[in-house]
């Protein structure tokens, strides 16, 4: 017979054995935040990885809306040509057109800035930490809750993030973004494309050989919107090149 006893030695638990490496990055960031107050930029600048992943995160948030996706998928036949070689005048025209629309994409980014203007720098550190630790899933979930307070636009964007995380694309993307800087091949050119790579890579791994047309048809889903965002930006740049020629 034993009386109910709620306490027990902590030494018998995992907590007592845990090494302190976990969360070091976050602790350092928080320390820096405390010390420098609003001057967060310095703290962020100190972390290479953070810079990478934040930039990437910002890009992911810049996802396309339904109309844009519709537009692109309807034009998918032309897009294939455009992406494949950019050789025809048609493709050039299309790219130019999409490029102009693509400018609107960046408007979404403003909501990120809104978050900061509302004084949520602390939250931003949490985002940064979440990303830097390969997106602890709980943190990602937490973000959704937090963002709910910042308008539907933001929620939409974060939904995309969450969808990506659930489909594993987001981790691929962050991994790639963080790792690419270690490579010697045209680093400046590679990083922004990592999203596209992850999507293309996954699609190629998963799917039967449907080619780019099939791939684009598959992009109707919300989880692929971020990829579309990149594609639009890509075409925008291509459009400009053609106009400049």
């Amino acid at each position, binding site marked *: *017979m*034993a*009386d*109910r*006893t709620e*306490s*027990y030695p902590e*030494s*018998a*638990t*995992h*907590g*007592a*054995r*845990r090494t302190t490496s976990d969360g070091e990055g976050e602790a350092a960031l928080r320390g820096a935040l405390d010390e420098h107050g609003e*001057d*967060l*930029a310095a703290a*962020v*600048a100190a972390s290479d990885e953070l*810079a*990478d992943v*934040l*930039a990437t995160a*910002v*890009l992911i948030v810049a996802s396309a809306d339904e109309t844009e996706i519709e537009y692109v998928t309807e034009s998918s036949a032309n897009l294939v040509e455009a992406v494949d070689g*950019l050789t025809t005048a048609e493709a050039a025209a299309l790219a130019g057109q999409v490029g102009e629309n693509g400018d609107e994409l*960046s408007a979404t*980014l403003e909501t990120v*800035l809104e978050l900061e203007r509302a004084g949520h*720098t602390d939250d931003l550190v949490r985002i940064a930490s979440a990303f830097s630790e*390969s997106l602890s*899933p*709980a943190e990602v979930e937490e973000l959704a809750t937090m963002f709910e307070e910042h308008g539907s636009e933001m929620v939409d964007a974060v939904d995309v993030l969450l969808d990506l995380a*659930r489909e*594993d694309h987001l*981790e*691929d993307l962050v*991994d*790639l973004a963080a*790792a*690419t*800087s270690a490579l010697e091949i*045209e*680093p*400046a*050119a*590679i990083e*922004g*494309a990592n999203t596209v*790579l992850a999507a*293309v*890579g996954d699609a*190629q791994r998963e799917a039967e050989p449907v080619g780019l047309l099939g791939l684009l048809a598959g992009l109707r889903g919300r989880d692929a919107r971020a990829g579309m965002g990149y594609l639009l*930006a*890509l075409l*925008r*740049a291509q459009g*400009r*090149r053609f106009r400049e020629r």
Partner: protein
Amino acid sequence: MAVSDAPDGAAGEAGDLDGVAGYMQGAKEQALKNVEQVAEGVAAETLPEGKLFEIAQSIGDKRLSELTVEDTTCGYCAVGCRFDLYSDGEEILAARPTAEEDAPVNGISTCVKGKFGYDFVNSDDRLTSPLVRDEDGAFREATWDEALARAAEGLGAIRDEHGGDALSVIASSKATNEENYLMGKFARQVLGTNSVDNCNRLCHSSTVAGLAKTYGYGAASVSVDDLEETDCYLITGSNTTEAHPVIATRIKQNVRDGADLLVFDPREVQIAEYATQYSRVEPGYDAVWINGITRHIVNNDLHDEAFVAERTTGFEDVREAVQEFTPERVEEVTGVPPAEIEAAAETIAAADTCVFGWTLGLTEHSHGTENVMAMANLAAVTGNLGEPGTGVSPFRGQNNVQGGGGDMGPLPDNFPGYQDVADDEVRAKFEDAWDCDISPEYGYYTTQMFLAADDDDLRGMYIIGENAALSEPGVNHAEEILADLDFLVVQDLFVTETAEYADVVLPASSFVEKTGTFTNTDRTVQMVKQVMPPKGDSRPDWKILQALANRMGRDWDYDSTAEIMEEVNSLTPLYGGVSHERVEAEGGLQWPCWDEDHPGTERLYAEEFNTDDGKAHLQAVGFSEPAETPDEEYPFTLTTGRVLYQYHTGTMTHREEGIMQYTPSDFVEIHPDTAVDHGIEDGDLVRVESRRGSIVVPAQVTDRVGPDTVFAPIHFAESAVNRLTDEEHLDPAAATPEFKVSAVRVAPAEGEAEPVTAADVDAGTGDD
């Protein structure tokens, strides 16, 4: 990225924006610039896509090579999702889809718990060393040697003085099949008792009893494929989207593509939003409306005459028994209007195929077995069995309650494979294999154990991975019993509310730390693989059981769970052809699988039922009502259930911070009219009181429930809704308690609602 660019950009291009705003602005510009550069690169073909793809692959491969990756089966619910888990040896880093042929049930889908719910593995309060009591009764850390010696001594003393019958084992449906087999063997061979049971008693044992009596097997007849292709569903008592999200997704997709979905439930649960017909029912009268549907069908000759004639017995008895359930009577008792009964009956009869799905809303009653038999009758008279897209589908709750909780026989009346303890031939087989004497008398069911302990017929318990102090009905009583036991051993991941009463606590390993098999809700045996080493000094249940058995005079010598499965299949015809090797090679095997050449059984009853004459034995089911109905003093019906982001008593999910943000605390759902009548507003604290106890929780005012019903979730120790439920009135056939109906009253309570804090979470809650 050329990292330094971003902050430079932040400083240089962001103008008057400081701090993070400046940084973000810079990052944005930098990122867009990067995209343009990439675009230019692609356009200039300096970086063809193929090259980029190669780079992506090689980076990915290198990173993954540093991690352990294993495909395994989810340890939350019994849908049986499989996926790859990634670990660095310390924690679970990610869950990703595995090869589709290795995930027959879920493909690439997983729900929030399976995908994200692993913080519990590394929780600070995860027990990593055994605990024993010191001379003052306080817990102290002990070596395995000492803890096992104490456990053997305590259990052995009771066995020697009072006989094995004074001991019981509560097995864990969270553990693997192999471990559950050993739990049953341990009880009978080492302790000498048939009193071994598990959480199935609190949930689907009435399903098992009802289906076994009518069809022969106490299990779902369907495969998950049937759930995807049927033309019609009748779902009742199942909060499918929250408790079995991946199955719910399949159902929703099929309904979107044109299948009919009939939902009968006291709460307008989320799956009802997708239904072609939702009917609200009064809790506790399921057999009444089901019989009403059957009556309409047989009285209008809508039944499947050929099926009934060729494959069933007892049809005339059923026809006669359902006559009392006229549309008027059904409406009077259950609140379902005649037109809805008729519409449901006509829909089922008109559909080419129909699946009948349910969970605990049908079973957790003092007459749950009758409810299940009424449903089994309906499926049979409409001929919806044995063909693709047809069948009965109880959605099981615990990850391994089908296999570990049932098939492996940690049951007071059955050996593995539902072989009857009272059958002399069967018993002789096990006595011979296990080298022991086994009583032909059935042992106690879990619910009965707590009643037997009241009379000192039970003096010691060995509770494995079950949080009886929270999950048993009438927990005030359960707590008294646990405190009064002569000796209690608890084996768990945490010091649960139950472990707080233990003399010895043994630290067990979680499903990501061991290898074995689980059997899911459609009878598929699937591999569970070790992804990381056991935390601290914790051990897998099978190793603990082996060590304890050997301390108590036995000579167990299993090197692996594969070896244990060899013993299982040699003694269990249903699993005759199941081995780790085959399960691994074939990506899952559905029982019955009689021998090594048998391919497994996708769908039960295609040819015949598992009865002596091969026919379904339909059972006349008359009127039944809850043991406790509302009256003037306690005018409302309390029904209990689950929410998406939580799991059972919260041992696993309460340690997940993200999840706790979604559903951090208990609540009670109250209809708006009822709330107005009692002066209750949304968020107010409310006292909910039954004849057995009371709890105080915040009100959630919603028309999801009817005006005479209130609903509370089961997941929280802080308010322990099972203080209100009834431990005495049990289903006569299955001994399932009536969790779904208790008469209660509600009143505003003083004070502010307090959400659960991190401290509460750390204090821990239990598991079942």
